[in-house]
């Protein structure tokens, strides 16, 4: 169906916090991601097919070594106060996330930039430390939405003036935001809803009740425990996306007993992945194979043998490690991902058959990321995924990555990572990334039982293109300008 204009979209979101602010350096939850994309825009967006596509940029190109990138801006893009977007705005917006003072989450990704220059009004040139073929993908990041240069090379972090399709009418952090469409939006075929209201509804039951009683049109993350009830309601539709979202149980490979690769393999065979997909994800997911690359991503290695639940094999590996039984503690909380505690309990039950006792230690949701993740030798976690294997591996598996949650330091793997990044030949890259996935699977410290689908639910009036971007939930959080009411 053709997109139509009109209507007020009311959304119930799981996340959102009183501490949210409009400062792009602070975005840390879906509520602000969606807001960021609706009110501001990025240089590049990820198209439904997963490729990078210019947005505020009209085009971009790299030198052959992929180390210098030149972005040309559109002429027609304007801010909501009528000013056109200039190269200086882009430079100031990107610089906001760089430098010693920056507390931005995107700062590590920008560390590769050695220089940014505005070349006239419409051209920005980035010089990188070394070649990076995937560089444009970075500019899809919700942090890197563009604000106006205040004239001194800085932006006002709290400004509401953006280049997006909507303007803010009311904003109560952690409660709601009200958006109204800009009539002078420069992008064609986008921003269909007249108004959008996003509510933070933290409680899963409350979210589903609100959808059922028609108080909202769309919710994210319905409770999978009761989703079968929603499925029966004919006015509602469950929307799923096979994303890059995956659930992991990182083990510190530097801590006993996880320092023995056989123990790691034993655990990897003692978990019933199918049961987790069925019982925790209620079928909304696929089994994982202990590496973070999704089947939908480029360079996915389809030839790897699938790790499956096999208590005998687990025992076999235990034997190789010189053990006949094993006791480990798995730290978990539903903050890690919805169902993490249940998944851990299922793991614990399944592992008994292999002579492994997995003690489930539930930690408080509050403070989970600072007290448990990266701190405890065995815990549950998730990755929202990255558009490319390079970004994924660099973020969580490279030896020097801040978030190397398993403290894994595989020489071969780290060599390959650098080589593949600078390599422009696609088939060579595929080979390299394939081997890296294998290394992760057999030697790495991450137990990755499942890839989850992004699930959302909405009433049948909400319409969307046939193919949506699957990297993040809800059309990679760009649903506000891409979807419409039928």
């Amino acid at each position, binding site marked *: 169906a053709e997109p139509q204009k009109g209507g007020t979209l009311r959304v*119930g979101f799981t996340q959102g*916090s*009183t*501490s*949210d*602010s409009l*400062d792009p350096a*602070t975005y*840390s939850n879906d509520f602000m991601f969606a807001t960021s994309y609706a009110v501001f825009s990025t240089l590049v967006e990820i198209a439904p097919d997963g490729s990078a596509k210019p947005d505020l940029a009209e085009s971009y190109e790299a030198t052959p070594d992929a180390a210098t990138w030149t972005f040309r801006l559109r002429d027609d893009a304007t801010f909501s106060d009528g000013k056109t977007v200039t190269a200086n705005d882009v430079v100031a917006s990107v610089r906001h996330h760089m430098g*010693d*003072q*920056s*507390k*931005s*989450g995107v*700062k*590590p990704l920008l560390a590769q930039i050695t220089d940014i220059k505005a070349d006239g009004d419409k051209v920005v040139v980035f010089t990188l430390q070394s070649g990076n073929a995937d560089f444009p993908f970075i500019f899809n990041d919700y942090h890197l939405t563009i604000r106006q240069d205040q004239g001194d090379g800085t932006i006002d972090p709290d400004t509401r003036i953006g280049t997006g399709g909507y303007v803010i009418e*009311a904003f*109560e*952090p*952690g*409660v*709601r935001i009200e958006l109204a469409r800009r009539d002078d939006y420069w992008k064609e075929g986008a921003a269909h809803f007249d108004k959008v209201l996003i*509510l*933070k*509804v*933290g*409680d899963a*039951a*409350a979210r589903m*009740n*609100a959808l*059922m*009683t028609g*108080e*909202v049109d769309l919710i994210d993350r319905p409770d999978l425990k009761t989703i079968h009830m929603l499925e029966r309601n004919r006015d509602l539709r469950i929307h799923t996306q096979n994303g890059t979202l995956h659930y992991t149980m990182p083990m510190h490979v530097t801590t006993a007993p996880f320092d023995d690769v056989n123990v790691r393999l034993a655990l990897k065979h003692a978990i019933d992945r199918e049961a987790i997909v069925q019982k925790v994800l209620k079928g909304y997911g696929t089994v994982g194979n202990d590496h973070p690359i999704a089947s939908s991503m480029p360079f996915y290695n389809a030839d790897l043998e699938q790790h499956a639940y096999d208590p005998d094999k687990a025992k076999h590996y235990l034997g190789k490690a010189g053990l006949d039984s094993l006791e480990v503690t798995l730290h978990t909380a539903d903050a890690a991902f919805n169902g993490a505690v249940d998944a851990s309990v299922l793991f614990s039950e399944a592992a008994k058959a292999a002579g492994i006792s997995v003690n489930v230690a539930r930690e408080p*949701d*509050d*403070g989970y*990321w*600072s*007290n448990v*993740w990266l701190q405890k030798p065995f815990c549950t*976690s998730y990755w929202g995924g990255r558009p490319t294997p390079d970004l994924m591996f660099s973020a969580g598996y490279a030896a020097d990555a*801040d*978030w190397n949650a398993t403290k894994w330091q595989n020489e071969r793997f780290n060599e390959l990572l650098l080589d593949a990044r600078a390599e422009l030949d696609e088939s060579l890259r595929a080979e390299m990334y394939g081997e890296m996935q294998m290394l992760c699977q057999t030697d790495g410290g991450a137990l990755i039982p499942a890839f989850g689908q992004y699930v959302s639910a909405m009433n049948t009036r909400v319409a969307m293109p046939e193919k949506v971007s699957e990297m993040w939930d809800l059309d990679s959080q760009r649903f506000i300008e891409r979807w419409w009411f039928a």
Partner: protein
Amino acid sequence: MTRLQKLILSRLALGILTLFVVSALMFVGIELLPGDLAQQILGQSATPDTLRAFRAELGLDQPPHTRYLDWLSGVVQGDFGQSLASGRKVSDLLGTRLANTMFLAAYAAVIAVPVAVTLGLLAALWRNSIFDRAANIGALSAISMPEFFVAYLLIMLFSIKFGWFPTLARLDTATGLGDALYVTFLPALTLIMVVIAHMMRMTRAAIINVLASPYIEMARLKGVPRWRVVLKHALPNALAPIINVIALNLAYLIVGVVVVEVVFSYPGLGQLLVDAVASRDFPVVQAVGLFFAGTYILLNVAADILSILSNPRLRHGR
């Protein structure tokens, strides 16, 4: 009356002291909580670099006592500072939330208190009757259910089944009083169910306790009808415990409603406090915490004073 004034003053002074201790304890508590604001805000995306920068910006690199004293000197001058997490003024942040919390509490109280006291009086009047037994069992069952469960039951009944009331209690500045009462009916009802039992049982017990007094026998021997004995002779003398339990429950209505706020997505202070604790945003925690503690203390002082006023013996001190 000077005795009463002295008492009020000394109680208030004690209350302020308590507040001070509470604030110091909460500060220590937040200090002891693992992780700090920077880590919480940055969450999974924290890196040592960003953490350092963030801490410096927020002043978290200062020693704790400096930060506490800075904060305290601000508070003494009426300045509650700014939220570390969002940089907004704490007073702005609290404003609407406070109003929302008070609105819901008042809504529930206005219904719950008279109903509970009336039920308690009737139960005492018809002691050991079917009515008394039924009220007692009903009250016990109501308090024995977890609050969120009561809420879900009400939603199931009134929103999903009958479609009479909304499940989200959304209030904004534009909402009129009528609408506000309508959308917050279910959360208010949940709270009413939760607090009514306690007050009812206490009213009943206090009245029955007084009914054993010689002056009740005297009143009956003067030919005073039963209902008048309960209302005119027993109630005034049972007021102190009833007032106290009402104060306790009013405090609960203001202070203890986090769960109800979560279930109905009601933007009140409870959620703000939980969020602020989660993000270690200590100016906000302190402000809300102090407000809660202050509410509790004030209600208690008010209850004491009312108890005294209700008792001529204390009112006209000897």
